[in-house]
């Protein structure tokens, strides 16, 4: 017993060296996302991971979706720009088209803080999804703005497309016509559809970034 004590101690100590080091890096709890510094995710680099629960209570973790194309859509049901895409059924059509494919996952994220415009509960969000006939794979409430801050989401809508390898392939506006007018949907070039098409064909995404347009995400103003 004594003979083994010192070697055992030293091995344990060396192991102990590494564990706290990992602990220091991942010392947040089961919260939605490590609300880290202000650097936005960069197209061409790994999209930041996050965990969340959708309005049906199902857990969603970005890292688990590797191997699929993931679309992130920032949503605020009352923002006129979101209303433009939803009243014209433009968003639902795109959601439906894409989620019909086995390899695309669509996450709609609502980062409106409590007391701000567009803030929803699980119940009211479900009503919204049903009423608008929206077709996301998951609708996620992010009232603390953790995922929004992680992605530096600025507008509703603000779109991100993540490739099957987990690399961010597109970040920016949904299309090239930033008007709030409903007629702007027609004839507009949809960057999200184009990005997904390019990813599936193994081609380069032509427009990888664009200026996002919409209302500001209603983060807490505290």
């Amino acid at each position: 017993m004594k003979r083994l004590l010192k070697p055992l101690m030293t091995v344990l100590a060396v192991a102990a060296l590494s564990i706290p080091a990992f602990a220091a890096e991942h010392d947040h709890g089961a919260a939605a996302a490590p609300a880290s510094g202000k650097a936005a995710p960069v197209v061409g680099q790994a999209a930041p991971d996050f965990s969340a629960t959708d309005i049906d209570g199902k857990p969603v973790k970005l890292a688990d979706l590797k191997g699929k194309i993931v679309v992130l859509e920032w949503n605020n049901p009352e923002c006129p720009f979101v209303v433009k895409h939803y009243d014209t059924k433009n968003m639902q059509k795109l959601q439906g088209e894409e989620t019909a494919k086995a390899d695309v996952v669509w996450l709609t994220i609502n980062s409106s803080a409590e007391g701000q415009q567009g803030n929803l509960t699980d119940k009211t969000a479900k009503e919204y999804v049903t009423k608008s006939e929206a077709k996301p794979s998951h609708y996620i409430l992010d009232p603390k703005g953790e995922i929004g801050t992680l992605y530096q989401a600025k507008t509703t809508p603000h779109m991100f497309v993540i490739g099957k390898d987990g690399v961010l392939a597109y970040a920016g506006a949904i299309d090239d016509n930033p008007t709030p007018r409903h007629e702007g949907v027609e004839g507009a070039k949809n960057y999200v559809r184009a990005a997904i098409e390019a990813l599936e064909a193994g081609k380069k995404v032509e427009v990888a970034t664009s200026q996002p347009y919409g209302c500001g995400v209603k983060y807490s103003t505290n």
Partner: protein
Amino acid sequence: MRELPLRPLKNLILPLLYICVMGVTPVFAQEAEGPHAQIRLVPERTEVKAGETIRIAVEQTLDEHWHTYWLNPGDSGVAPEIEWTLPEGFETADIIWPSPHKIPFGPLTNYGYEDHTILLQPLTLPANIPEGPLTLKAEVTVLVCKDICIPETSEHTITLNDGSNVDNTDVITAAEGMLPKAEGWPLTYSEANGNLSITLAPANPEAFSDIRIETLALIPEEWGLVDNSASVIASIDNNILTIRQKRGDRALGEIKELRTLITYTDTNGDYRGVSLMGSPSEEATQVAAPAAANSTPQTSFLTAIIFALLGGLVLNLMPCVFPVLSLKAISLSKMSEKEQAHAAASGFAYTAGVVLSFTLIAGILMALKSAGAQIGWGFQLQNPTVVYGLALLLFVIGLSLSGIFSLQGGFTNAGQKLASQSGLTGTFFTGVLATLVATPCTAPFMGAAMGYALTQSAFAGMAVFVALGFGLALPYLLLTLVPPLRKLLPKPGHWMETFKEFLAFPMYASAAWLVWVLAQQTGSMSVLAALLGFVAVAFAFWAWGRRPQQKTIRAFITLLIVVILGLGLTLGFGETFKKSNHHETPVASGMWENFTQARLDELLQGDEPVFVDMTAAWCITCKVNERVALDTPETRMIFTEKKIAALKGDWTNQNPEITKFLESHGRKGVPLYVFYGPRDSASGNRPAPAVLPQILTPAIVANAVQ
């Protein structure tokens, strides 16, 4: 045909009339009433001739606290849109915008207008125009926001040449007064350290005379070039205005020239804007790269290997490592000539233990680095739990040396055990132990070597770590391989026992130092807990070997020991897990100011020299340097005389700003001393920053700052 009943019709007449009037109103009126924005289109004049250009004022009157947007709306929102229906050949040019304001909302920032604003739309008539009145129609959509946004559309009609001969020049002139001025100041821009840096160098020495620099804002025309919410650092020096702001998400290469506004409040209290454009600066645009390989001092692979070897050698002299080495060395002196083969085996076993441990550490560091962690050598000591663990380890080894309890295997009995397998295993683990106790100590030479190792490829990095391990193991290895060296060792005798007990004290000293480091990191409460933990552990180890033989009492005592040990460890480690923000930042003690990147940038904008000291509580070399060379009256006098601003960065706990600074100089650990010379009045530039050696003497410091 039946007669229509008249009475119901009469009742309908007024409402019908009302509806007709309201429905027809847009055709006549040029004003449209919206809930929050009133838009009015006012032509410069209504009498126009062919080929002329007139301006049409787009007047916005907004409810209080509501705003509309500029050409670049900022983080969100859209600029107003005007859809014109014009007679043949008429053309509109781009809107001319008055100076916008920065409008923050939570973490976002927009550029736009509140209250009352006039945009100007130029309209050019063709070479031939028909006789008679000309009708222009406009559909204006503005997004007007407070905390929520509402798009408001209004229809407008303007009639020109209708004989009314209205002159609205005063409206246009008022609008022109709010436009930013195109001063033509020469502008160059570049990117450095994650900032967009703009330099304006006009010939006119009075150009900046009315600027209140603290109110200056940078408002670019293009999106994504700067972080709209970041603060701007602006300074005027020798009639050159330098502006810096954190970069945005968009690659700077996407624009060929920069078109931007700067706005400020002038010395009269008026809000002003200046429109500027310029090209990238002639100097190479530094692309900010994290592990900036291009700004690393030229540490070649060979140099790094040599430095690592030397560093490892010197590590043997550190109080943490010295006892381990000396005891190992002493045990060799007990060996006879016959056991040379076994001696060699022992040497290799020890070296293997050391080198493998270093490889393991290197592997962990590289895995962490590729996972994106901001690590440097010594980072493990930024974690209080690790610090306490190491302190306990050193304390326990000290106890063993003092004879409180005895540890078998490898440590002191190498001479007897060399022949047996367990002896070699023990020696191997002694090597592991030596590495472990070496980690808190940073030897000179190691800084540059570690910096190189952690920024290069896995192979190169591993090689440097192996060299470091080899350096650490080298003295013992040489002793085992070169018998004549052993003759230099003192002959065995009673003194060995006393020497062994003596070596406990460097161990205790190292443990005490680590407890002090712990105090810096988590506060004085943890010191009490740590020391009580020590007492519990000491008791446990002492009592273990002295338990009575009698079965039941032995069992009871064993239980008691385990409980006390458990309590002690829980108490000691418990305090370290408390995520405490308490750490003694070296607050302006004497000449030292606390380091932040913002403060350094600010100081570097000025002319005076700046000295940066990156240190940590657990860095012995740092503390020695400060004692010997930096915190001396002579050095203080030199600093005062030369007006050197002194910044001290405390890396005792994680600090990403300091890590970035270290990396930008090719370093991954502390200490780091950087001196920025004063600005040369002739050229207007500072000399390149000078990095001082890791071991300082007062002379080195004095020479560097001359």
